[in-house]
């Protein structure tokens, strides 16, 4: 045998180089796979952050506004109602013409007016209603720039591009350059983005309505899914007899966890909207649908953490004469609660990011107004992202990315909370 062994040693030694090369290659593939995962994540985040960051600043132009009563069509003695009807658009236009007297052609004038956002006239109106004495005066005002003009000022549009391929024309760029050189442009934090609802104008669009809609939807989801999920988990862990019905329930829960979300949307449309005639586009229906969708997650994680509670606690409670229900609700659930909350937060985070089933139940409407209750038509943040992503205007691309950043911010906070809870739970 020792001769055999000697022969083997030589054979193995001869093959070693090749085998080690294969080993290194295999390891390299592994490293490459992990690296690719990182690269994808990085590109995704970088793409969104770099596109979205400019949306958090807004550009304003300083315009010397001449509140000419003739152009406004009202004088200083006008009532608030009259002021509301006044023609502030004309005032802005004439003020712009005053600043650039050389502009004469109709086309150029039109381009000139496009420097300022449509929202500017409403801002001026509010100022004048506040202080009617402005009428007849001439005063410098910071007015919101049009999203295209703002895009140029933010450096997103380059002159290099052929003029036909861009919305901001050379002449508009010249005016904006002039304004910038005179110090008549400024950037400020875009508060409108957080205070306004949707708008057709990118510079006026905000996520407030969508946030409120998401909030209402999540509240409904939580109020339904949390108690039902925890109760279901308690039943399955502590009370369920081993029989066919219990098996059926468990199989159903496991399968529901993997049903595509859009199918839940079909359920919502057919059952809650068409059959029960609940209002379309409402957070109420959205919440119900999402709660059905998140139930399996909550049930499965709650069961796991109820299971993890040491049996000695149950025995101790039962031993002093507590009933099964008292044992569970006084002793087992409090211990399992951090785990249950962790699961619920993860479920809520899923619900917050979900959009497909909500499309089915009509939460895709164009909503400018901030919803006031769970039956008002509204949209949610992910669906708002979907709507904006579909808009052709360039200005909406940055809004979309910014909304994504906000959404991801919420998700990160929720997940961090879940991780924190789990860590604390594990230490126990």
């Amino acid at each position, binding site marked *: 045998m020792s001769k055999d062994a000697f022969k083997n040693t030589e054979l193995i030694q001869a093959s070693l180089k090749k085998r080690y090369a294969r080993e290194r290659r295999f390891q390299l593939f592994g490293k490459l796979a992990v690296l690719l995962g990182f690269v*994808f*994540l990085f590109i995704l985040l970088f793409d969104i952050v770099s596109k979205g960051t400019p949306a958090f600043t807004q550009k304003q132009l300083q315009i010397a506004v001449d509140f000419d009563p003739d152009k406004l069509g009202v004088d200083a003695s006008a009532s608030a109602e009259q002021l509301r009807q006044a023609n502030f658009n004309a005032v802005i236009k004439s003020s712009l013409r005053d600043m650039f007297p050389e502009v004469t052609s109709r086309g150029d004038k039109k381009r000139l007016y496009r420097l300022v956002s449509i929202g500017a006239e409403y801002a001026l109106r509010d100022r004048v209603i506040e202080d009617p004495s402005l009428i007849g005066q001439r005063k410098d005002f910071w007015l919101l720039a049009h999203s295209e003009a703002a895009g140029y000022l933010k450096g997103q549009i380059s002159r290099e591009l052929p003029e036909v391929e861009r919305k901001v024309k050379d002449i508009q760029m010249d005016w904006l350059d002039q304004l910038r050189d005179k110090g008549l442009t400024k950037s400020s934090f875009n508060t409108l983005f957080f205070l306004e609802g949707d708008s057709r104008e990118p510079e006026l669009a905000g996520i407030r309505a969508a946030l409120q809609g998401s909030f209402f939807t999540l509240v409904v989801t939580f109020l339904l899914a949390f108690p039902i999920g925890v109760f279901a988990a308690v039943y399955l862990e502590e009370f369920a007899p081993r029989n066919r019905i219990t098996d059926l329930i468990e199989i159903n829960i496991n399968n529901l966890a993997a049903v595509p979300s859009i199918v839940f949307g079909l359920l919502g449309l057919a059952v809650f909207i068409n059959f029960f005639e609940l209002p379309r586009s409402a957070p109420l229906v959205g919440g119900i649908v999402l709660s059905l969708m998140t139930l399996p997650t909550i049930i499965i994680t709650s069961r796991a953490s109820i299971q993890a509670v040491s049996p000695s606690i149950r025995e101790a409670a039962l031993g002093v004469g507590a009933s099964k229900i008292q044992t569970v609700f006084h002793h087992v659930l409090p211990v399992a609660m951090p785990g249950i909350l962790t699961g619920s937060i993860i479920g809520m985070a899923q619900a917050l990011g979900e959009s497909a089933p909500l499309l089915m139940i009509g939460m895709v409407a164009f909503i400018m107004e901030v919803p006031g209750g769970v039956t008002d038509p509204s949209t949610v943040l992910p669906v708002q992202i979907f709507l904006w992503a579909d808009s052709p205007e360039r200005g909406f691309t940055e809004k979309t990315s910014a909304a994504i950043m906000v959404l991801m911010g919420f998700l990160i906070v929720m997940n961090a909370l879940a991780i924190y809870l789990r860590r604390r739970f594990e230490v126990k």
Partner: protein
Amino acid sequence: MQTSTVFLTLVALCAVSFFIGRHKSRLIGMAGGGLQTLHSLPVHYGYMAALWAGLPALLVFIVWLGVEAPVIRNLVIAELPAEVLALSLDELGLYYNQVVGVALGSVDVGVVDANQVTAAHRYNELLTASRGLKMLLVSLVAVIGGLLAVMRVKPDLRARNHVEDIFTWVLFACSSIAVFTTLGIVLSVLFEAVRFFQVIPMNDFLFGLQWSPQMAIRADQVGASGSFGFIPLLVGTLLISMVAMLIAVPIGLMSAIYLSEYASRRFRAVTKPVLEILAGVPTVVYGFFAALTVAPFIRNLGESIGLSVASESALAAGLVMGIMIIPFVMSLSDDIISAVPNTLREASLGMGATMSETIRKVLLPAALPGIVGGILLAVSRAIGETMIVVMAAGLSAKLTINPLEAVTTITVQIVTLLVGDQEFDSPKTLAAFALGLVLFFVTLLLNVIALYVVRKYREQYE
């Protein structure tokens, strides 16, 4: 909000019952020689009274809410003149909706006929009556229930057991919601799908090679064969899913292998959660990324090497979907590979196998069933994924397996058919439910098989 008023009344009645029940049991207990003479604590008598007051009334309330609208509708329609009743079901529905609109003030009286105005008045009367009756009935049932319970309060009443029995049933009801959800999905989708198949023969749907639902809106085209052929959607769905799997499976599996077999504990502890961020990114974000970044990039790349790539190519959607599924495949494979007993690793390494030989020749073959199960779950996710394809895949159904062209998927069509203005009952709308039915059963089948395979696999090493 009338509904919430009734609900709050009900809650108040429950609370009152609770206090009366508790108070009475205390009185009886004291009279009988102290609270220890009672079978249960006073609160249990209170809970019992509250449950007796609340549960039957809640049931009445829910049933009433469910039948209210259809009953009123039937009553109002029954009184409409004969010529209106002669309208087709759809037209009648529209007519009735206008009546409701007038009644609620959302439709201007000027645009409707006199019959509708009368009917609107009738509707309002009935609604008021119904609301009054509802309030009355719910309160009555609650009061009677509460009274019955309070009357039964005696020292030997086993209130605690009673309350707990009811509560156990409530717990059971909560867990059975999962069954009802599944049932609801199956029934609602099946019901509408059956109506669809009454118009479009099932064979045309299952084996048709052309999908163009738009044509069917025109009255003369209803039932036109060939418009609802499902095959192009299936091929499109599978094409995109396959691209996704080609990305996700190698990367996910290799990362799992590297992290569980090669990487140090610290590297693993940092890397795994970071890669799992990919799983937490909402799908709409991936959709945006696919449509605005990846698709143009691929198109430009293709153009630069002389290939014509559709701007909504299956490749872009599939690639991004693959990225989304990487962490899913990774965690599943990781679980599965970790479940392979350590003794097998030692046996192989102990004979002088290198780590990669051990992985390729021992661990992976041993883990294969589990990994296949995990991949099936991932495929089911890819097939059911909606937002990425809605945003980045095409709308028109093209029967092709070229990933550079634009294809559409089942989920995209469901969304396009159902979002926006829809006439209910048109085959176009119903088709969405037929697609939903197919989607539900395909994913269900994949999941059942996958879960079974994975479970068998785990049992093998337990």
